């Protein structure tokens, strides 16, 4: 085990653990935000740069600070490493810069975006963004495209985290989409508008941190915070069948995987509970699910505010 100190809190972790995962073992404010890293998809991370942290001491053997901020999701810890996340002004400034870059070409169409309320970029903007943009140029724009009859791609909203590419690489039998072009013109797309048809392709909607990939069976049906998330299961031959169904009255509006507080699909019995497309898109009748009870949304996000918050920090002031 190696010891690492993050924001003044010491933790012992397995050698080879990344700074971000060490911070997640501490939890709370010590955890840097991550837009592209996804612990269930090996190889992700390093791209969005929101998880940059300051390394004040490289290791016990060589306690010099690292000159640059490092991506905590892809930098392994060393014994005696001292990391500053929330406590570093430099991290705060540069993370604000990264958020500004991510928002530079983002359309800010939250009022009509299905992801609003559970969007990681909203959360990040809320915490690190500035109230006013300095970006006066025209934003790059793309037309929304259908990739298959179940998934809609709004490239304007994409932050190029590459998570969906990793889903296609690791969960489906063949990848038909990827990143075309480069630089500011880079876009997620299928080659010549091919449909993404695969039993597990719907998971790319769950991993998308923004509203770039949305569920065509749910689009514009409801704001997510009007729906009641319920834990449900059904026996499925393709996947684990453990899901969250989002209900309004007795009607199921959408089906998603069960996600943890970092927005990642949960592991159930040590296996990531990815959903197959049948469960996600076709089973919208409540009789097809065994509904277990309300789902706890354990995430600092708009969706968790008020209605779904399960822990009350302060006693509510009684009116009257």
């Amino acid at each position: 085990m190696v010891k690492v100190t993050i924001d003044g809190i010491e933790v012992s972790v397995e050698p080879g653990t990344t700074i971000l995962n060490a911070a997640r073992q501490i939890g709370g404010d010590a955890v840097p935000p991550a837009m592209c890293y996804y612990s269930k998809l090996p190889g992700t991370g390093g791209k969005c740069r929101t998880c940059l942290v300051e390394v004040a001491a490289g290791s016990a053997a060589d306690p010099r600070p690292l000159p640059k901020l490092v991506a905590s999701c892809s930098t392994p810890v060393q014994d005696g490493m001292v990391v500053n996340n929330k406590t570093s002004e430099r991290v705060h400034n540069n993370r604000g810069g990264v958020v500004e870059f991510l928002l530079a070409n983002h359309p800010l169409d939250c009022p009509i975006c299905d992801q609003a309320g559970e969007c990681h970029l909203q959360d990040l903007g809320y915490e690190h963004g500035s109230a006013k943009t300095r970006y006066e140029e025209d934003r790059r724009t793309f037309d929304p495209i259908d990739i298959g009859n179940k998934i809609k791609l709004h490239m304007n909203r994409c932050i190029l985290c590459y998570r969906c590419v990793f889903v296609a690489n690791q969960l489906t039998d063949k990848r038909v989409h990827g990143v075309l072009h480069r630089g500011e013109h880079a876009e997620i797309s299928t080659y010549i508008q091919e449909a993404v048809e695969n039993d597990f392709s719907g998971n790319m909607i769950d991993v998308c941190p923004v509203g770039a990939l949305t569920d065509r069976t749910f689009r514009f049906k409801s704001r997510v915070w009007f729906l009641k998330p319920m834990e449900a299961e059904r026996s499925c031959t393709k996947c684990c069948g453990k899901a969250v169904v989002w209900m309004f009255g007795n009607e199921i509006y959408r089906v998603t995987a069960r996600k943890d507080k970092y927005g990642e699909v949960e592991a159930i019995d040590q296996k990531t509970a990815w959903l197959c497309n049948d469960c996600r898109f076709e089973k919208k009748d409540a009789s097809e699910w065994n509904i277990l009870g309300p789902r706890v949304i354990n995430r600092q996000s708009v969706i968790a505010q008020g209605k779904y918050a399960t822990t009350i920090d302060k006693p509510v002031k009684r009116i009257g």
Partner: protein
Amino acid sequence: MNNRKLLLEHLEVPGIEGIDVYVKHGGYNTLEKALKKMSPEEVVEEVKKSGLRGRGGAGFPTGMKWSFLAKPEGIPRYLVCNADESEPGTFKDRFLMEKIPHLLVEAMVLSSYALGANTSYIYIRGEYMYLLEILEKAIQEAYAKGFLGKNIMGSGFDHDLVVTPGGGAYICGEETALLESLEGKRGNPRIKPPFPAVKGLWGCPTVVNNVETIAAVVSIVRDGGEAYAAIGIGKSTGTKLISACGNLVRPGVYEIELGMTVEEFIYGDDYCRGIANGKKLKACVPGGSSVPILPHYLVTKTAAGEDRLMTYESLADGGFKTGSMLGSGGFIVFDEDQCIVRNTWNFTRFYAHESCGQCSPCREGTGWMEKVLHRLETGKGQLHDIDLLADINKKIEGNTICPLGDAAAWPVAAAIHHFREEFEWHVTHPEEAQTRNYGLIQQPVVA
């Protein structure tokens, strides 16, 4: 100063691109010497002694890079030559490969022997297709003469050399993007660690070196590392190819001994012979487009008033405040008629076009800077845009996966630092700026 030529020694010999003439002038003798009389460790030792530093831009000591190479049993190792020379202003490798291709072939076999690599690759820039033919011909000649293939010159060392063209992306000059591209994937830089010395091409330990770096190994092994180290000053040893371009009387590729003064290089009769058309020097980018620009009063003298030398240290003297970098040796000279704002915009446009788009600061930042600079250049900018540019810069620098972000940020930061008045003049005199150049006004005059 007598100027020894190590790389371009036989440049003027007719037919040196063919193997017969090359062998007649001592070609492949060094390879034979190494294979028959030296162990691989001894070759590495000579390179370490020579003090050779990477000629691609970063200037990392080559011997040290070679000694980092992991050597696990039963796993092949690779040497990859980075011939993806795409930095604006740099064209030295092209010259070397075009004129004396066998020097690179010999050096590749020699270096591979030192590193224990049985296969090596030359990754050549997509736009250099005609060089591909030249190199392939040289490689075939070398195979026919037994300098490549099985059991080279009876030494028991087998080696295959493959030359592969890229698709013409600047980013593929970054070593890990190059390896991705060589593997047939999209040329995105990899997240480090692991470094190529541990996990490189196809997951095997790999050394990636610039063309000129590898080519220098031949003269180092021939004359010994100490003889090479005797040339130059301090930690800048040996000779360096400089590709000089811009408003010079005689632009071109020159092999210089490190330690020559910048003044002699620009104005000397054997070199660039001064600024063309009797104009005055306005600014200089001494190491390819990604290094900070120097205003004329800091080109030949450092801020402390000492002579500026063509060495890694002297060009970097003063840090990024009053210095620059030797970089890849792409020496770009601007006369008084050139517009710094336009030039900065042009460089930034290049980086915005070449950013791979993988990490957010570079993808969004380079494009943003390009748009702001274009507004400034076309007279549509505002004064706060200059501060905005400086701030975007700081948010990109050091926060990206690979050095392309830094390379895009540095020239803009330096241009604003040294030529702020000119940027402001573009804002305050938008119409005049379209027809007339800012020139040398308000710059301190140096005799």
